[in-house]
């Protein structure tokens, strides 16, 4: 016995259906049904061939395309701006350092190796070293020879002095003695004005043999062909052993 044999057998009542349909619409036609049938048969919307679709590229399409392009470049600029903002500014300087010292500050390092051979102790006595620096900015933005002046302030705690500062100051016999050094300056933000390069936020001055941290660094240019490099704020030197 198949499943269909369980289905009850009835007698169709065509008059019941006829009366129901007559009550629904009378003698007229079912307009909605006819329209639905015709829309899905003889009145189906024709699909336009591709070339015609291309030819109908109107001003709305141009506007959409322009909006898309604008949005693309806007987003790109925004992303680049964010990336740029997130990157630390970094500039490498090649400096010719000419140290001019006051009093006997440069004499002390000469004597320290014998008294205290520990490198940290040797650095610890370097106080308020004032240098006059002639610098050549390797970057195209500052191609001229510049002279800078900077001050290195001793760190407050001897415990932080854990490196050596081998560009020994005592090699300079005269105030005009000079040597070439390379410094890499990096910071959260940098700005270039007509007279200076300004670095803000976790400024780091990296040298192969030492490392300086500061919150702000301004490199000022003079009206002549030289420029003075001045540290402002609390530029502190922290020598590290590289």
């Amino acid at each position, binding site marked *: 016995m198949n499943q269909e044999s369980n*289905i009850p057998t009835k007698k169709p009542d065509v008059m*019941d259906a006829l009366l129901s349909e007559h009550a629904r619409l009378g003698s007229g036609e*079912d307009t909605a049904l006819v329209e639905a049938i015709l829309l899905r048969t*003889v009145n189906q919307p024709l699909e336009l061939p591709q070339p015609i679709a291309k030819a109908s590229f109107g001003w709305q399409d141009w506007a959409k395309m322009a909006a898309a392009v604008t949005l693309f470049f806007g987003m790109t600029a925004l992303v680049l701006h964010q990336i740029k903002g997130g990157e630390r500014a970094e500039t490498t300087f090649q400096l010719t350092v000419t140290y001019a010292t006051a009093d006997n500050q440069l004499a002390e390092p000469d004597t320290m190796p014998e008294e205290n051979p520990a490198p940290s102790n040797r650095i610890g006595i370097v106080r308020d070293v004032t240098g006059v620096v002639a610098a050549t900015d390797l970057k195209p933005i500052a191609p001229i020879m510049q002279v800078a002046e900077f001050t290195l302030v001793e760190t407050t705690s001897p415990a932080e002095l854990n490196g050596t500062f081998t560009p020994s100051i005592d090699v300079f016999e005269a105030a005009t003695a000079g040597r070439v050094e390379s410094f890499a300056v990096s910071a959260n933000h940098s700005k270039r004005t007509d007279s200076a390069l300004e670095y803000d936020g976790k400024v780091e001055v990296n040298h192969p043999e030492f490392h300086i941290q500061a919150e702000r660094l301004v490199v000022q240019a003079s009206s002549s062909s030289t420029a003075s490099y001045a540290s402002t704020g609390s530029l502190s030197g922290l020598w590290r052993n590289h």
Partner: protein
Amino acid sequence: MHLISAIANDVENQLSESQPDLHDPAVFGDLVRAHHRELIVYARALTRESNTANDIVQEAFIVAFDKMDTFDVTRDFPTWMRGIVRNKWREWVRKNKRYQYSDTNIAEMDADIAAWQAESAAGNRTVFDALSSCLERLPENLRETVNEFYYNDQNGEEVAEALGVSPAAIRKRLQRARELLKACVDRKISDQSLQES
């Protein structure tokens, strides 16, 4: 030999002239308008559901349009359409498994619908027109019962309460009214056919 060929061509031409060109959108539209109401009655009698009947008729016409190339020109269009509606109904029954009809009952109903479609296709009064006329001839108690049940869309209990009779009496009245109306409609359709011939 030439005579046989000529006769064959003549028969073929007559067949092609008598059969509608389903590829012609106007012809297909006219066929839809001419036959959809009777086919709805047919599908409604089969399914006993108004919405399902409409869906089946719509799908049947779409199938006919898609398969018009397979249409057998030796058969008439209404017969072909009823066959498609039946197939759609059988698919529906297989899915719903509610009831089934005997082949005899289906054949009887098919004959009724065929006669109605023939009159409609001939441009004569439709079965709906005939029914309107027959309703006016019903006895008063049957007419008001039919009116309440079908045209005012009330169920048996509501009609019984409205007319102050038992639901069983309403069922009997409705059955009797349908028999009288069927006989009346058949007679009118038959008379119409006789007048044509």
